């Protein structure tokens, strides 16, 4: 039996293109959280997050079927570029067309309850998500984008620089200013989520 979880991305792509369905499931499983979190913190609406998340994977699957994936590239940065472009496209369209989603204010009630979590745990979970989302929303978009790609998508600063077509020092600088700003906010609010 092939141990799919031990295989690298390139081999999984190859297997899927030869008709192995489990290979794509493994790839999805490997990267779903990072891609979902990236979209989640870039947009302000849970319903929109889920739509863009599904659309991202549908595009990924279609591209793999059509063999449009470049084996020399890395799978995650490529997949994140698809997600990122969908988010940017959405914001562009939003300027031209009436809003399809309520983007006014993020509500903790947007967060779907999780199976197996009691009401108290759910409330703590919602508050943490809400707090971090609020923290990120206080940053200029360019800084927020770098924080999300480094922290939640787990791209290296070099990969972020390539993806956003910026210098690596610019990526590091944006992250640095973002950390300073968040640190200042946290200190001012005297919030300690770990307590």
């Amino acid at each position, binding site marked *: 039996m092939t141990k799919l979880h031990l295989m690298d991305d390139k081999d999984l792509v190859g297997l899927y293109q030869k008709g192995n369905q489990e290979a794509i499931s493994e790839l*999805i499983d490997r990267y779903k959280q990072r891609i*979902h979190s990236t979209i989640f913190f870039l947009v302000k609406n849970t319903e929109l997050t889920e739509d863009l998340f*599904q659309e991202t*994977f549908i595009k990924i699957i279609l591209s793999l079927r059509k063999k449009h994936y470049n084996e020399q590239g890395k799978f995650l940065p490529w997949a994140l570029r698809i997600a990122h472009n969908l988010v940017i496209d959405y914001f562009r369209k939003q300027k031209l067309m009436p809003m399809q989603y309520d983007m006014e204010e993020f509500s903790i009630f947007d967060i779907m309850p999780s199976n197996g979590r009691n009401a108290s745990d759910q409330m703590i979970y919602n508050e943490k998500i809400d707090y971090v989302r609020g923290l990120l929303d206080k940053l200029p978009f360019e800084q927020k984008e770098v924080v999300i790609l480094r*922290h939640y998508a787990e791209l290296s600063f070099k990969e972020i620089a390539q993806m956003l077509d910026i210098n690596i020092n610019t990526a590091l600088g944006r992250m640095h200013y973002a950390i300073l700003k968040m640190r200042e906010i946290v200190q001012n609010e005297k919030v300690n989520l770990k307590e």
Partner: protein
Amino acid sequence: MIKRTTQTDLLSYAYNDAGLCDSDRIQRAIDGDPIIMEDFKEIIKVIEILDSAKPEISPESMNRILKFC
């Protein structure tokens, strides 16, 4: 020449993004300078806050994607 440890060095190090040689230099700087140590702790504090929020994927989204495969 001794290379100074900058805030972006600390950031790279916190995210395991500094090379092996730089990591060693940065760790020594952290250990040897209480101000740098304090700066590093502040970075880690923010990282821990970001870590505390892990959004969940809706099962419906996953079902739709897996059906599409």
